[in-house]
């Protein structure tokens, strides 16, 4: 599968051509209803799976879907779940995820899912039923202006006005969703139009004169970038999700290895550069390692690849990487210079630009000498482990970092996909789950949507039924879409959910602990349901673990189970994520003693009021019990 994953992306996706038969579909030229044309369009695009939920104004499209020989429909239990499922499918495969919902509440329930996909540049086509054209604008039953509501969070959207436009609109929507900077596209289909007849003529080409993404980087800029790289003493590759979207992982790796340039990765780039690549310093930013943050901050040249200098990476922008020049490569010109000025901006697709850049540097013969720099960052990595090992020894307690490292060791990196919810669980997963292959770590980065990870895991599991798909969840996030346990059970998605159960909205509670005087306003979830019984109610396998010695066995049983399985790992409420750059703080100014060398550790312990350290050991006297 790793081979197919590497190949799945690339020139085809860029051209935006239908993945399916396009105009050569067997229904071409037939007379049919608008609803049948919608389904025929999806078939022409090669869509194999649609996630959705029916209703009055989608009933005709669902009727047409009932006849489809090629499209499998997965009935979610909530439209938000359906969108995240399609999103997980899209992130795992690189294909467009497809959603079908009804008008009104069905459509409004998709908004968070669409916004999540938009922020992380995930290609989706969302098809919503709409009230008949004649009553649009009259507040008729189950009418909502979903095109208006979603305008700020879609790449583009359509309200169909004529049945003659169905085929062309679908072709355009798929093209727009997957080319350039990918994103969600919404098509609103009035139900009277779905009834009208049309001769189905699916086009292969699109003609949108106002939409022409730039793929090839400007040659002069590429030369300017090569010249900067040749002179750099402390260059660093700042890898973002664009590397995944463009399928440029292999090129990025070649770039690093050929030129001796270390990398740091954003949340979206987890897996884009293998964890085990020595030159990869891994996660950077608010919960990045001290060594990765230091390397980015002290570099003299940042080569930003499909990354957008998010505040979760830069910390305080004014003091971020003060000595670094910036080469910024992105397919979206609006990202370049938005947060940090770029000395060399290059608009283009990384899978083309990086190749050109490597060629340019190598043909000019002036490869940078980075040996001293690489030695230096490697030394930081040795001296500043992500966490002090002692922080990981808490007798009698399950330590989430340790449990996830255990899990990581049990997963075949080529045959597994890990998704996360949002909060501490997400940050621990970024830190402690190793990923070697792109599209195997799925997490809501830009919007930080609690409730994303679990349905996304279902979407990924349906795309790759032979892979292990594990969702790392928090007890809060899991409850945001736990109804999707039915979807997993009914559709044979053998997802595994590890709930890091701290009976709290842990990440918010951690902030309250560190910055709000331990005033735990609305973050304690003492009245959680019994997750094991809940899972069992959906015919899942499930077990609870409280003893650290039993973690390994439970995870083994989970991974060995045929069907979906939940492990409720009881962890202390006081576990906190470190290192941490305080919000608005400076990169390089990480909070928490836990990541320091022994002497720094001792000093921090004696100097601090204990707040930071308390997160690692429950020695602050609030008597939290398991």
């Amino acid at each position, binding site marked *: 599968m790793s081979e197919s994953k590497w190949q799945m992306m690339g020139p085809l996706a860029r051209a935006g051509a239908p993945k399916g038969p396009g105009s050569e579909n067997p229904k071409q030229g037939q007379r049919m209803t608008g609803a049948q044309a919608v389904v025929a369009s999806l078939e022409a695009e090669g869509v194999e799976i649609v996630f959705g939920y029916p209703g009055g104004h989608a009933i005709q499209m669902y009727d047409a879907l009932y006849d489809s020989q090629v499209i499998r429909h997965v009935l979610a239990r909530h439209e938000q779940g359906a969108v995240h499922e399609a999103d997980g499918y899209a992130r795992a495969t690189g294909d467009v995820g497809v959603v079908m919902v009804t008008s009104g509440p069905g459509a409004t329930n998709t908004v968070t899912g669409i916004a999540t996909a938009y922020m992380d540049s995930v290609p989706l086509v969302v098809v919503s039923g709409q009230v008949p054209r004649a009553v649009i604008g009259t507040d008729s039953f189950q009418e909502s202006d979903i*095109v*208006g509501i979603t*305008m*700020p969070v879609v*790449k*583009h959207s359509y*309200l169909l006005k004529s049945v003659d436009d169905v085929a062309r609109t679908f072709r355009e929507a798929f093209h*727009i969703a997957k080319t350039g900077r990918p994103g969600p596209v919404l098509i609103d289909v009035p139900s009277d139009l779905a009834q009208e007849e049309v001769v189905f003529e699916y086009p292969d080409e699109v003609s*949108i*004169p*106002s*939409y022409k993404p730039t793929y090839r980087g400007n040659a002069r800029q590429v030369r300017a970038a090569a010249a900067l790289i040749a002179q750099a003493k402390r260059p660093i590759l700042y890898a973002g999700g664009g590397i995944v979207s463009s399928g440029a992982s292999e090129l990025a790796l070649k770039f690093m290895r050929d030129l001796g340039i270390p990398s740091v990765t954003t949340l979206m780039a987890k897996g884009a550069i293998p964890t085990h690549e020595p030159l990869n310093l891994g996660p950077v930013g608010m919960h990045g390692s001290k060594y990765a943050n230091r390397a980015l901050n002290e570099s003299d040249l940042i080569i930003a690849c499909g990354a957008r200098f998010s505040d979760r990476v830069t910390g305080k922008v004014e003091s971020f990487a003060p000595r670094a020049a910036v080469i910024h490569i992105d397919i*979206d*010109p*609006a990202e370049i*210079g*938005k947060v940090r000025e770029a000395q060399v901006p290059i608009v283009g697709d990384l899978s083309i630009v990086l190749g050109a850049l490597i060629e340019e540097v190598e043909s000019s013969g002036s490869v940078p000498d980075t040996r001293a720099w690489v030695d230096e960052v490697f030394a930081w990595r040795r001296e500043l482990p992500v966490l002090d090992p002692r922080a990981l020894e808490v007798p009698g307690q399950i330590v989430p970092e340790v449990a996830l490292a255990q899990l990581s060791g049990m997963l075949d990196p080529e045959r597994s996909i890990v998704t996360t919810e949002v909060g501490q669980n997400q940050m621990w997963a970024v830190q402690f789950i190793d990923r070697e292959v792109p599209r195997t770590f799925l997490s809501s980065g830009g919007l930080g949507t609690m409730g994303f990870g679990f349905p996304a895991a279902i979407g990924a599991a349906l795309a790759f039924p032979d892979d292990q798909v594990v969702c790392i969840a928090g007890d809060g996030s899991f409850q945001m879409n736990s109804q999707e346990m039915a979807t997993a059970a009914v559709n044979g998605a053998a997802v595994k959910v590890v709930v890091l159960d701290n009976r709290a909205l842990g990440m918010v509670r951690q902030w309250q602990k560190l910055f709000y005087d331990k005033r735990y306003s609305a973050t304690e979830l003492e009245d959680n349901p019994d997750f094991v019984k809940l899972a069992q109610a959906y015919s899942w396998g499930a077990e609870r673990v409280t003893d650290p010695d039993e973690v390994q066995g439970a995870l083994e049983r989970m991974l060995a189970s045929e069907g979906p399985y939940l492990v409720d790992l009881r962890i202390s409420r006081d576990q906190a994520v470190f290192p941490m750059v305080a919000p608005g703080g400076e990169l390089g100014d990480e909070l928490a003693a836990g990541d320091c060398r022994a002497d720094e550790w001792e000093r921090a312990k004696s100097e601090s009021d204990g707040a930071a350290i308390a997160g690692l050991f429950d020695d602050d006297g609030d008597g939290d019990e398991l």
Partner: protein
Amino acid sequence: MSEMKHVLSVLVENRSGVLARVVGLISRRGFNIDSLSVGPTENPSRSRITIIVVADDESYEQITKQLNKLVVVHKLQDLTNDSYIERELVLFKVSAPPERRSEVIEIANLFRANIVDVGASELTIEATGSQSKLQGMEDLLAAYGIKEITRTGKIAISRNSKERS
């Protein structure tokens, strides 16, 4: 950072919802639109929106880049630093009792404006021109008492023979 007035000429698809996309995008990023006008062009499938915003350089760059990303936007021209012609149409309803009516008419003539409606004690004047001309006229009319003003919003066109994007 210093803010500056920008005159943007945006060529868009002539379809419903397009104006909402353009205006929504600008307001979403926190900018106030000073003036806006929209109408079809020589090509019936395209409309031109003229927008005047006041923004600092960085924010302005972000707006234009984001506008360019909209699928419905064909071309975006910043006329601010170009040689361009800017016009607006204004309707003034001015208090003009019989004894002062001729003075008001004289002012209108001076600015080559038209009297489009005559009431018992007021005149409605239609004027077009550049901002400075219209402002000059408004200042003079103010002495007589302006009861109502309505403006079309500015439209602008580059003096260059070929459009640049």
